[in-house]
């Protein structure tokens, strides 16, 4: 019995230790190399298509809410985010407008004069192409693990802070593109999005971005 407890404590401290050990702070030189690599990739990315799975975690629920779909992005700023399961819903960001198709019910929002929408739009597009190194908007810290380079962004804007406590972007080390996004809310509930089957610079017809 005593041994069991000792073993559990040892095991727990070991896993805690390894948990911390997995994520290391990047050195300054690594940060600039990483930023350059991401910016170079983003510059060469004309289009991006990917599947995604999204899980919404709320502490009071027994299970995370899972949704999934497809994402299409075309420079400079056309983005389609399409949920396929368990419901049909798509949202398109194009020319300062937002087009929504909610299971066939179509809706447009002119975000021209909404600063908040603009910020959310930038956040979403930035999460996809990784162009989020804006020190005026965020306090950014950089970490690395075996597989990922990680940026953690704390919003500076008071309005944005009310929605987002922290954004975490996971870049896979091989392609320098975002493969996971975690958006943590002020309540500490979070949304995690994982990108799969990414294709860069595949041809995407403009009509994809029509509602």
């Amino acid at each position, binding site marked *: 019995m005593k041994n069991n407890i000792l073993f559990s404590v040892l095991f727990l401290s070991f896993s805690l230790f390894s948990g911390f050990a997995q994520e290391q702070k990047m050195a300054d030189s690594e940060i600039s190399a990483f930023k350059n690599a991401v910016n170079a990739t983003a510059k060469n990315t004309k289009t991006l298509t990917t599947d995604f799975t*999204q899980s*919404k975690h*709320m502490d*009071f*629920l*027994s*299970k995370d*809410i*899972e*949704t999934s779909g497809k994402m299409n992005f075309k420079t400079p700023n056309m983005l389609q985010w399409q*949920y396929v399961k*368990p*419901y049909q*819903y798509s*949202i398109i960001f194009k020319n300062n407008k937002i087009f*929504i198709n*909610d299971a066939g*019910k179509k*809706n447009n929002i002119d975000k021209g004069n909404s600063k908040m929408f603009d910020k959310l739009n930038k956040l*979403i597009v930035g999460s996809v192409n990784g162009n989020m190194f804006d020190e005026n908007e965020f306090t950014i810290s950089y970490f690395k693990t075996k597989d990922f380079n990680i940026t953690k962004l704390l919003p500076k804007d008071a309005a944005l802070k*009310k*929605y987002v406590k922290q954004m975490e972007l996971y870049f896979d080390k091989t392609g320098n593109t975002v493969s996971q996004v975690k*958006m943590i*809310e002020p*309540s500490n*509930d*979070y*949304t995690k999005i994982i990108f799969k089957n990414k294709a860069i610079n595949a041809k995407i017809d403009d009509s994809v971005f029509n509602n």
Partner: protein
Amino acid sequence: MQKLMIRFSIISILSLVFTSCAVKTVKDFDKMEVTSQVYKTPYFSDKNEDYIYKASISVYGNDFGGIFIVKKTNETTHRAVFTTEFGNTLFDFEISGNDFKVNHIIEELDRKILINTLKRDFMLLLKEDFKVAEQYENENFKVYKSPDSKRFNYLFINKSDSKFSKLVHATKSKEKINIEYLSENNTLADKIVIQHKNIKLRIELNKITN
């Protein structure tokens, strides 16, 4: 004679008042003996269940959607949370009997009139025990009438399969809110429509199976 005339006039005026104003909800129904003192609604009563719905809200011609989440957190309390499709929380309420607590609401929605409307809707939706004061019946439905301060709730139960299919929230003379339920198994509501009668507000909830 004069006395009789006066009495007659009073009766006719009164009957006119009553017939023109009475709520039409159980018109043409037969009034029955009350068979049970309390009716328990089934649709949000399981603590182990995460109730997740895709919501479509239409208010004065504007449509928007999101995810509506309900969890029964203890015997008397429900959490009701609304998020965008992306997962951002728009509001987070806690309802316990007649107590209503706003855990969080985004600034853009923080309007007293909106919160009060949602409060009434969700309290009706999540209320589990209804005291039965009167009981009615027609060919298809059994109806329980339950007092709700100065108003009343009418609960419609299908006679054929005992499913709770509609709630009408009304004053003495007017229907205010209708909630319709579609349920496959009688424990989960697959589709819920909340329709307001005095304002142009309609909330449709479709169950999401994870």
